[in-house]
Every structure is written in C-alpha cells, then in structure tokens.
C-alpha cells in the first residue's frame, strides 16, 4: 500500500495542459501502478498456488519442512487417494443431481416472473420484484430452523427419498436452492428485460401471440446472453454451496462435493495435504468454468448492478 501512484492525467488533461513536467510523473506513476498491481495479483494467486503445491507433497515431508520449502518428492498420490478412498466421483454426481435441475428451474421460473413484470408491465410488478429480491438478501440462518422442522415432517415415497422424508433428501436442498436463488435471478432478469425494445412485444401482440408465445418464442431468445451469464453464475453458486446440504442432508453418501470436503478433515488428525488435494479437486471445475466463461461470469454479476 506504500506505493501511492502519482496521478496519471487522462488524455483530456494532456491535451489541455500540454507539455510540462507532467509526462515524467505520469511515467513514474505508470510504473508504480504496474508494480503495485503485479504484486497484488501475485499475492492473490499465491494461496491457490500454495494449495496446489502442498497437495503434491507427502505429509511427512511438509510436516518436517513446512509448506514453504523445496520439494523432495512430488506426486499425484493424494489425488488418487481422494478419488479412490474418498470416492469424490460420487459426490460430484450428487452435486450435479442438485445443481443441474436447480439452475434450469431457477432460470425458467425467474425469467417468467421477470417477463411478467417487465414485459407485460403488470401493476404491482415492482413490489413483486422487491419481495423476491429482499428474500435473497436475508441471512440463510433465518430460514433454516422452520425449514428443518418442516422437512422433517414432509413424507415422501421411497422412490423420491430413501429416508421417506424430505429431510435427508436431494429434494430438500434443491427446493431451498431454487427458492433462495429465485430472488437474485428475478432481479437481474427484470432489469435486463427492461432494456429490450418494447415494440417487439407489441408487434407480437398485434400478430395475436399469447402470453406463452411472447415469453418463450420472443422474449427468451433475446435474453440468451443474460441467461448464459446467470446460468454460469448460478451453477457456480449452487456448486459452491456448503451450508444447505450440511443442514438438510444427514447421510454422508448423499452430500454434494463442497460439503463432502468437510469429511476430509478428521476429528483428531487432519492430513492437510489431502485436504489441499481435495480443495484443488473441488475448486478446479469452478476455476475452469471461470477461465473459459469469464465474460459470462462477470456479466452475470454486473448485470444486476448496471441497470438499463
């Protein structure tokens, strides 16, 4: 933080103030900024690199030398162990069972609500958007207690839940994920749809299109960028969720991957290198998704704030 970058004049100031002592300060400022940002960026990457590095080294070695030392042995043993002993694959499947339908249902319902509010211009629509949005802003713990109680009372047939209850089933986590994320998606999509030209809908109405056609055939295709962005973001969030499954799922075998990671830390002894390998395995898909779909990812977050 000690490097306070000197003010770099914009193109405009340069044009106005002309030459003088300023270009030199500017160059020095640029260098300072450059060095500072490089340091910060590397600092932000360092913990991740440390996790990767630790996961490749045996526990005995790092226990003696610490994580910050030259390696004697590097191996993928922990990754193998994570996949064979801890059956990570199974937990990945559990995550997909929850996140894939979750994202699809959330996007479908939220886009319809957003459509009804911002395209059909229903009265009271803004109140509806607010009720959804405010719901997304509550701390999760506020809704846990009653849901925990209710899910323990809702009986489901065996083919839906082998516990015969909504508690300890994927349905519980799925329902909560959908309910909780609806708010954010409605908010973002309603803002996005407001920027679409209203004439398209009017033309469709003149042609006799019903509500469903206006929604499914006309509005949704225009929302593809927003849906891609939100879908990427929502998938990551549901994938990253830790709390819901922890509270609503009791059987270890049903846990999604992020919550299952907690099992790698033992009651009395924790092999942190194994935990590092597990963290890298769990983080890898989100990082890959981010690197591939960075544009969508950032668009998803900023759609909500940059309003049309």
């Amino acid at each position: 933080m000690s490097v306070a970058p000197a003010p770099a004049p914009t193109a405009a100031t340069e044009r106005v103030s002309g030459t003088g002592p300023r270009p030199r300060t500017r160059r020095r400022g640029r260098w300072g900024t450059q060095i500072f940002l490089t340091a910060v960026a590397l600092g932000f990457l360092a913990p991740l690199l440390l996790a990767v590095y630790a996961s490749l080294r045996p526990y005995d070695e790092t226990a003696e030398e610490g994580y910050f030392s030259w390696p004697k042995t590097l191996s993928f043993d922990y990754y193998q162990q994570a996949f064979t002993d801890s059956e990570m694959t199974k937990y990945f499947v559990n995550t997909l069972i929850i996140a894939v339908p979750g994202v699809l249902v959330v996007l479908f319902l939220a886009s319809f609500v957003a459509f009804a509010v911002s395209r059909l211009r229903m009265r009271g629509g803004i109140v509806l958007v607010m009720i959804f949005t405010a719901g997304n802003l509550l701390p999760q713990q506020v809704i846990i207690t009653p849901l925990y109680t209710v899910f323990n009372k809702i009986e489901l047939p065996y083919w839906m839940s082998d516990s015969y209850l909504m508690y300890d089933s994927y349905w519980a986590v799925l329902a909560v994920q959908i309910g909780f994320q609806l708010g954010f998606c409605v908010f973002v999509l309603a803002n996005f749809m407001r920027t679409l030209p209203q004439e398209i809908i009017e033309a469709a109405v003149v042609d006799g299109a019903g509500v469903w056609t206006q929604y499914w055939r006309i509005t949704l295709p225009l929302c593809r960028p927003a849906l891609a962005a939100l879908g990427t973001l929502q998938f990551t969030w549901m994938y990253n969720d830790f709390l819901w499954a922890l509270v609503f799922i009791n059987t270890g075998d049903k846990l999604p991957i992020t919550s299952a990671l907690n099992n790698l830390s033992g009651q009395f002894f924790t092999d942190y290198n194994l935990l590092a390998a597990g963290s890298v395995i769990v983080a890898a898909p989100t990082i890959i998704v981010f690197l591939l779909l960075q544009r969508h990812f950032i668009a998803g977050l900023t759609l909500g704030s940059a309003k049309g």
Partner: protein
Amino acid sequence: MSLTSTRGDRGRRRRGARRFNRRDRVVLAVLLGLAILIDLFIIWGPTVASIGLSFTSYDGIGDITWVGLDNYRTAFTEYPQFWPAVRHNLMWLGFLGLVATPFGLFLAVLIDRGVRFSRFYQSAIYLPVVLSLAIVGFIAQLVFSRDQGALNALLGRQDNPIDWIGDPDINIWMVMIAAAWRHTGYVMILYLAGLKAVDASLKEAAAIDGANERQTFFRVVFPTLRPVNVIVMVITVIEALRAFDIVYAINRGRNGLELLSVLVTDNIIGEASRIGFGSAIAVVLLVFSLGFVVTYLVQELRGEKNR
C-alpha cells in the same frame, strides 16, 4: 398478486380490447403462482415462523410452549457465546466495509485507467471469488497453520511459531483476511463495470475546470457511481452477516471464531436441538440485516419512480 393483476388487467382493458385470453391467464397463474408459492414456502413463511418460534421453547419433538422473551433474555444475559459472536460479526462487517471494500474500489480505479496487462490483473484478483467460502477456509489453514503454514515460514518464525488459527485472540483477524481475499475481487468487478459506464465527458469537463485527479474522482466520478455503491454496500453487509462457511470449515466456529450464524446452526442441528432458542438468535441476525435491506429497497423504489 391475483388481485393486483386483475386490477392491472382491467386498467389495460380500457386501452386495448381484451389483453389476456383464458389460456394466457392460466399460463400466468400457474407459472407466477408457482414462483410466488416457492418464495413464500421457502423464504418468507420460514422467516415469519422463525420470529414466532423464537418466543417458544420448541425442541423439535415436544409441544410448542410460549415462553415470551425468555430466549432473548437467555441469549443476552446467560449464553456465553452470544456477545463474542455479535462482536465478531460487527468486526467482520467493519473489516469488509472499511478495508476490503475500499481496497477493491482502489484496485478498480487503478485498473480502469488502462494499464497494461489489465486483463491479467483483473482475472487474478477476481479468481478467489469463484471459490467456495468453505474452500477459502481450507486454504487459509495451509497459509496460517502453526507448524507447517507458509506465513510462519515467510516470517522466519519456525522456531517460535505463532498459532494464527488456534490462538483465540488473533484467529478472527486471520479469518477476516481470508474473507477479504474473496470479497475484494467481487467489489472490484462491480466497480470496474460501474467505472466503465461513467461518461468520459464528465471527467474531461472536470479536468478543464482545473480539477486534479483526486478531486475529479471524489467530486465527480464517485457520486455518479451511486447505484453501484448501494449494491456494494448491500453485498458487504450481507456477506458479513452470512459469514459461516469459512469458520465452519476451519474449526466449526469455536475457540474465538464464534459467529451468530454458527450459533444458530449449532442450536438447531446439534444434539440439544434448541429450536426456539436458535430461532431467537436468528431473529437477532434478521433485525441486523433488515435495516440494510429496507434501506436498499427504499433506494430501489426511488430509482423506480425516477425511471
């Protein structure tokens, strides 16, 4: 909702002939109804129920007995973890709000000036945001662990190691740094988007009027970022009140890492199953957050009127 929609319906009918036919109404009722039902069943119903349960001694099995304010009294006066948890939540809020958020804004301003390699900086700083907070907790242990951690090695303290995570006096600060690692990038991205949308002629006009860069930023650019500021404020508050995963992944929120969210979870899914009491703590959390949520909604409504 059905009430408002029919009213809207009737209002429209004056202009057009019939706006919705029967099929349209069925589609609207089913899909809007489903979304609203889910929202009520999962979010607002339980919120109200939490408030109700907080006045009872419900334990999940027996009868629901009304105990008035007893749970709150117990929490405020007897429950030893309550005040430390409140303090930690407030510290968390202060740290994110006064350190991580301004730092994110600062980075956004630097990157927005168009430095070279800005894509790299942006991605690197943003990367932690895609990680689960639980993973942030696990990675923090690698950095801060007493015997093997990188921090002690960097400081050259292997012989006299500091237990960054185990010492209840300092561990909350380490965890907050880990949380800030993730929060900074989030704030930065939001401000970068906001800064891109600022009209360049504003800055030029300020420069012509002789404003230096600092004045231009604080007097001209920053005020136009108001919508982003509101979103960032809401996110900061919500993140601080929701903080749970990191501490739970590290040590289940004990030994100096108590948070209100942990206390609620412990009281409900722990063996004690003190649902009434857990709800009371949840309501405290709710009251904290509602202040900010309402501020935000008022802001939104005002924006809506100006639209």
